[in-house]
Structures are given as C-alpha cells and as structure tokens.
C-alpha cells in the first residue's frame, strides 16, 4: 500500500547517508559483521534490525514519529493528523474505549485495536470524561473510529519498520 515520499526506500537513503563500502575492520571474525549491522555479500551495510524496531516502536508510541525519524515528513504529518483526528472524533462521539482484561474476545480484540494508537489511547480516555455511550449510532461509530485509529497506526508502524530495514514497503 505504501510507497516512499522521495523514492528513497532505506533509512540510510532517507537520511542522506551514503551506502557503506565494506570496511575490513568492521567485519568480525565470524564474517557476520559488527554487532549493529551485517555486511551483505555485495559489500553494502544492511540496516540495523535494532534501529528498525526502535523506529517502529517510536511510530507506535507517537503516531508519525517513526516516519519522522526516517525523514518522511509528509507521511509523518499525515499519520499524526489522521490518527489524532480519528481519536478526537471517536472520543467526541462517545465511542467505547476498551480497557485491558475484557470479558470476552471482542473486548480483548477491541483493546488491542485501541491500544494500537499508542499514546493517543490515553488521550482518548482523557477526552472521554463522560464515558462511552453506544446506545446511539454516533457512539457506535465512535468505537469504530477509535479502533480504526489504532489499526491504522499499527499499519504505519509496520511500514516504518519495513522502510527502516531498507525494504520496499
């Protein structure tokens, strides 16, 4: 679904860093490279998995932060605004913000979806001071808005991870 803003698909390309040329000193005895990165057969340095995970976690915690760390500014702003707007509308429509330890599978799945919004999950709970009201259509839609915000953010975090790993995502 996602394509890159600038056509650069790797974190190194996005940050303007040149592709690494194999440095004999950076190769360990096992031939697997340094602790941070592996040297690929063609001599280029593979993006760090740890960094990609950190980027994904950042993107999950604050929508758009993962892409911002990769200097994908347009997407970062779009994600922040989209997830934020969905959370604001969902809470304003008094949608159900699921809590951990739900009674049934739907409540637990709902919590997973809501928690996908990261820190915005707590924003939704803070905004919804009157509690949820799903007895009306807008309350029911609000629940979907909140879940969509979380799922969209999880998808974006996955995309940030793939982009940070240098894969076309």
């Amino acid at each position, binding site marked *: 679904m*996602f394509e890159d803003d600038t056509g650069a698909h790797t974190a190194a390309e996005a940050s303007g860093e040149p592709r690494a040329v194999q440095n004999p000193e950076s190769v360990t005895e096992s031939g697997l490279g340094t602790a941070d990165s592996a040297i690929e057969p063609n001599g280029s340095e593979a993006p760090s998995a740890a960094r990609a995970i950190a980027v994904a976690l950042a993107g999950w915690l604050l929508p758009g932060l993962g892409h911002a760390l990769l200097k994908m500014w347009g997407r970062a702003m*779009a994600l922040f605004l989209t997830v934020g707007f969905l959370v604001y*509308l969902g809470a304003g*429509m008094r949608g159900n913000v699921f809590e951990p330890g739900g009674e049934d599978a739907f409540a637990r799945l709902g919590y997973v979806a809501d928690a996908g919004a990261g820190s915005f999950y707590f924003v939704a709970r803070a905004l919804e001071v009157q509690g949820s009201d799903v007895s009306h259509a*807008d309350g029911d*839609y609000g629940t979907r808005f909140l879940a969509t915000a979380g799922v969209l953010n999880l998808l*974006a975090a996955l995309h940030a991870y793939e982009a940070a790993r240098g894969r076309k995502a």
Partner: protein
Amino acid sequence: MVPLHFSHFQSLLLFALIISLAFGTLGRRKPIERVKYAAWSFAMFVLVGIALGWLMYPFSK
C-alpha cells in the same frame, strides 16, 4: 469535551473522507496519483457502505 452527534450517513461520509485522504497521502508517490486514489477510495467506501446498508435493510424489520 463537547459531545459530537452525527447521523449514520454523516458518520459514513466522515469516515470515508478521513481514511481516503490518509490512504491517498500514504499510499501513492505522485500528487495526481494521490488525488485519484483518494477519490477512488472515497467513492468505494460510500458506494459499498450504501450497498451493504440496502442489503441488510430487509433484516431490520
């Protein structure tokens, strides 16, 4: 915060608009492709939503 009230159709339009804009912005590289994809997504969200609503209508009585 002030509670927001929308009808089914207004909620459908709002949801379709936000998600279509996000898909368009995130999913395509060129501006014209973004606009086309967002418009296509929006149309599909609304049309499929209305079609499903009519399909479920007989069971609402």
